[in-house]
Every structure is written in structure tokens, then in C-alpha cells.
């Protein structure tokens, strides 16, 4: 399949390993990523707080770029997924639509609302299908217990995200099982990572991240995996701060979603950028049964 690749800011900068893993997995599955150097940042939820209509217009412009090429959009970040989808939903309001169209039309940009916005999780589970993913698995991750961590904006608000059930999602767990890992059920999987207030009140933000990691750990997780690079920053890059806030040692490896899939499909740790994590992932990978059938 062919899709417009919307990597988002973080995967092009500090979260480069997410971009690397996405490209590896998509190449392996025959997903052609079409790149658009004119995509802008989605506003990450912050621009939405400062000026809602501006945020919608910026994302309507992004969507129009994919529409012109006749492609759906692939996101690899829960927040990008949320912001682009929210723009589509808000553009159904005639008052909003008129203001945004008024800003876009003089630039020769026409927003139609025809492009679908799909996170990699959905592309893998629905478009490619779990059977095809399974057929590419070379090194099943059996023995590794993984707590899926969805990221708020992939799920909520459920009626607007048109996501699967926000309270009881299972697509990520289904994917983890498909690549041989054992998904861990814990309350924190649908909770918040704390990232949005990391600059407003770091102690509270890290306390929230720490609680989710502790929860996953209490339920036996060897690692956590997330479809959102902002969650990854909060859970991995700031994990030392989270540990301090919850007064516990955490040592929880945090994977990006395509890294888990890539590992199972036989990618090397280098190809997936695993050395770029703050918390080493070796202990989790060591849990994989070496005798697991190829």
C-alpha cells in the first residue's frame, strides 16, 4: 500500500529512532511511504490551547497536501493522530469551516476532508492485517511481557477519534500477541504519561509517568511499548525523574511500537536505534526465549 508519511516533529529530531524503526517495518511489509517536505507540525495540542481555529487551519493545510496526492495519512504519534483527526472533526462545523476556508482559499489550498488519518497501529492491524504481520515474524518475542501504553490522543475523545473503544482498546495487545510477546493487562495502559505538563509542573508530570510505569511493573511487565514519541520521552527520557517522584527504582525499558514489531521481524537493535534510549532495553530483550521457533 501507498500512504502519505506524516512523521511529526519528534520522530525527526530527538525521537529519530522511531522514524528509523517505522521505515524498517514499512519496508519489510511493502508499505510505500510518500514524503511531503511541506508538512508542518500538528501543534501538539499546545497551539490548540492558544488558538483553536489557527490549529485547525494548520492541520487542514496538512490534510489538503495529502488529499491533493490522493493519499491517506500515516501518523506514528498519538498526538499527531489526535490533532489531525480533531481538525477533520472540527471542520464539519460550518462556522469553523468558513473561517478556515477563508484563510486557505487565498493560498490556493482547498480542504475537502477526503483523506483518512491512520496511525501505524491501525495500518498494521487493519490494513495490512495481523495474519500478514505474523507471516513476517522471524524471531517471536515469546517470553517477553509487554505493557502496551496507548497515549491519550489515540483513544480520546472516543467519539471524535473514531477509535476502537477508548476504555477497552485491544488493537495494541493483539499486535503484541501477533509478534509473540505476552501483553500485560494493567489500568495504566490507557492513562496519561504526564508529558503535557512537563514544563508547567515537572514534579506532577513525572509523578504521573512514574505511576503508570509502577503499575505496569506490578503486573509483571518486562517492558512497555508506546505508539507515541511524547509518551516515550516522558516514560524513557525522563524516567529517572519519574523514579524520584514515586520513590522507587523503575528500570523499565520503553519501546516505540514499530521497534517491537521490527525486533520480531528480525531487525537488529542498531537498525531500530535502540541505543538511543535512556533506559537500556537489553534486559527485556534477554527475556525472549532463545529457543523460540523461527
Amino acid at each position, binding site marked *: 500500500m501507498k500512504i502519505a508519511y506524516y512523521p511529526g*516533529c*519528534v520522530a*525527526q*529530531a*530527538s*525521537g*529519530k529512532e522511531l522514524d528509523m524503526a517505522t521505515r524498517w517495518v514499512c519496508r519489510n511489509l511493502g508499505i510505500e511511504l510518500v514524503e511531503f*517536505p*511541506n*508538512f*508542518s*507540525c500538528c*501543534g*501538539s*495540542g*499546545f*497551539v*490548540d*490551547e*492558544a*488558538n*483553536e481555529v*489557527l490549529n485547525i*487551519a*494548520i492541520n487542514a*493545510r496538512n490534510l489538503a497536501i495529502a488529499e491533493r496526492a490522493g493519499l491517506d495519512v500515516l501518523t506514528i504519534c498519538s498526538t499527531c493522530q489526535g490533532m489531525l483527526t480533531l481538525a477533520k472533526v472540527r471542520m464539519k462545523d460550518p462556522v469553523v469551516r468558513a*473561517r*478556515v476556508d477563508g*484563510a*486557505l482559499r*487565498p*493560498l490556493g*489550498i482547498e480542504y475537502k476532508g477526503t483523506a483518512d488519518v491512520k496511525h501505524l497501529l491501525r495500518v498494521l492491524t487493519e490494513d495490512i492485517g495481523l495474519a500478514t504481520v505474523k507471516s513476517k515474524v522471524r524471531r517471536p518475542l515469546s517470553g517477553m511481557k509487554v505493557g502496551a501504553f496507548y497515549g*491519550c490522543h489515540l483513544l*480520546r*475523545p*472516543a467519539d471524535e477519534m473514531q477509535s476502537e473503544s*477508548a*476504555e*477497552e482498546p485491544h488493537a495494541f495487545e493483539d499486535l503484541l500477541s501477533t509478534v509473540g510477546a505476552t501483553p500485560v493487562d494493567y*489500568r495504566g495502559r490507557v*492513562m*496519561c504519561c*504526564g508529558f*503535557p*505538563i512537563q*514544563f*508547567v*509542573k515537572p514534579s*506532577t508530570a513525572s*509523578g*504521573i509517568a512514574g*505511576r503508570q510505569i509502577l503499575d505496569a511493573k506490578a503486573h509483571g511487565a518486562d517492558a512497555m511499548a508506546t505508539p507515541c514519541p511524547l509518551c516515550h520521552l516522558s516514560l524513557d*527520557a*525522563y524516567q*529517572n*525523574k519519574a523514579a524520584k517522584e514515586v520513590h522507587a527504582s523503575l528500570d523499565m525499558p520503553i519501546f516505540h511500537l514499530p521497534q517491537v514489531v521490527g525486533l520480531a521481524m528480525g531487525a537488529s537493535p542498531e537498525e531500530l536505534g535502540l*541505543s538511543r*534510549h*535512556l533506559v537500556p532495553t537489553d534486559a527485556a530483550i534477554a527475556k525472549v526465549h532463545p529457543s523460540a521457533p523461527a
Partner: protein
Amino acid sequence: MAAETISAPFDIYRFRPGIDTKPRYQRYTLDLTPHTPVLTALLKIRAEVDPSLSLRYSCRSAICGSCAMQINSKSRLACETHIGPEVERHGRIVVEPMRNQPVVRDLVVNQSPFWREYDKIEPHLKLDPRHPMPEGKATAMTPAQVDRFKETPRCIACAACYSACPAVEADPGFPGPMALAKLYRFVVDPRDSATQERLTRIQPNGLWLCLRCHLCTEACPKDVRPSERIRDLKEMAVSVQGATELGSRHAVGFKENLKGAGQLNEMKLVRQTMGLTGMIGQIPQGIKVWRKKPEIMKRPRPIEGLDEVEKIYEALDTSSKEPE
């Protein structure tokens, strides 16, 4: 014809503070039809099996808001949660008291923290004494003005949102979704004279601690959508007060940042939010991250078509949205 019953295992939180050393979960298994509400099952347990089970309820019709509790980790009303789907998804029904409020006994919590935050926002009209309403017209509003309340008047104060909120859990100083949704209702009320004061007073350690995780909107049994009204309050707060708080500085800083290259400049955003002095405190963590992810220092390359983004800003980022 009677509906078929299913065997429903309940694990119910039991705790008597001051008597029990720690909480325990008690298992009761009942044969019930799948459409039985959890509340009905709890009352049956209390009537037929264990009269010592404590819970709070009243109307049994999702109107009074008394029976909010955690059912399989989700904060919801027991009277409108049916057992069938819960047993199907989880194999059992774990019933616990709401979070973020101290347990009085079993499923009953002390709601004082929730009501304290509600009182703090002064949930009553502050009419402008210089503009008294004409006799008998004190409540007159146009339908369009009433529409601005959006869904907020539907709130039944059940506290499910307060129980579900991770910001409340980690920071008891946060007012919580219900109080903020109620604040919104008074801020947009055309008869209220304290709009600016309300928006100013809520900002430190209040408004900007909302994570916009939307867990409140998901938990709300009346679709009040608190997270969306909190977003509205943030935009109104920026328009009346500018970027004076860390939270508003971050939101406005991000908006300005995006205009620069069309892509986020991570380092610049830290400076925009925290200022140069605030950045100093970030240096030790920054170095740790930079060692593994040197790109945090890199300036992004401007996107193609940046002029389009600039023009969109020119068109839509001029008029600040004043609360009416």
C-alpha cells in the same frame, strides 16, 4: 420468556478504616441476567448475602449522581453499568470506591475534596451591581447565550470525572474537571461580572495543570465534556491575560515556535517557556538526553511552503478571542 442468566463473579472492595488493617476484596458470585445494573446486583448482595456492605445510592436512574464508583477500573455510575459486557470483557466485575477521595467504608468515599474545589470557584452568579437587571428579568438570556454553556448544565456532580483525573491523583491542588467545567459555565454567562477575575484566579496551579488526557470526558455519564471546556478556558485566559503563567507561556510559545520553521524547535521552546534562567535548571537532564539524542540541539530545517503557514497565521492569529 425469562432472559437467560449468567454467572457473574463480583470482587468487591471491603475496608473499614480504623478497624481493618488493610482493604480486602470479597468474592460474591450471582446468577443474573446480562442487563442487570451493577447497582441492582450490589443491593441484592446487601439484601440477601451480606448486610454489612456499604454503598451510596439514591435514584437508580442516573439522575442523582450518588452511585459513582470504579467498575473494572473505570469510574462510572453503578446504576447504568450493565453486568453483561463487564463479565464478557473481564471475566469478573471488580467494584471499588472512587479514587482521589478518602474511603469512609467499603464503596463509600468522603467527597469533601471534590466539593471543596467546587466551592473555591464560587459557583454562583456575581451580578454587576452597576447594571441591575430589570424587575423580573434577572434570568433572561437569549437562546444563543444559553447555547454558550454547551453541555455544562447537564452535570450531576457525581464526581466520576474527579475520580478518573490523573492530575488530581498526582496533584491534590488541581481543581479537577467538574469544578473547571462549572467555572466555564460562569465565565461565559453574560450576566456574570467577574469573568476576568475568575480567569485570572484559576490559572496558578489550576487551569494549566490539565493534561488534556480527556479521561474526564470519557468518564462523564452526562457527556459534559469537561476537557473541551477546559481547553476553551485556556484560550480565554490567554486572551484576557496574555502568556503570564508557565502553562500559557508554553502554549503561546509553541504557537510562535511553529511559525518559525513550520516544525518544532525543541530547545527554543524550552527557552520560550522557562526563560533563560529557568533553562539553567534543565541543563543536567538536558545533557543526559543530549548524549543519547543529540538532535535536541539541532535547529529544524524550515519546511517547504512556510510562507503558507505564515499567511495562515496572519489571517487567523490577529484577533484575540474575547470572552463575551
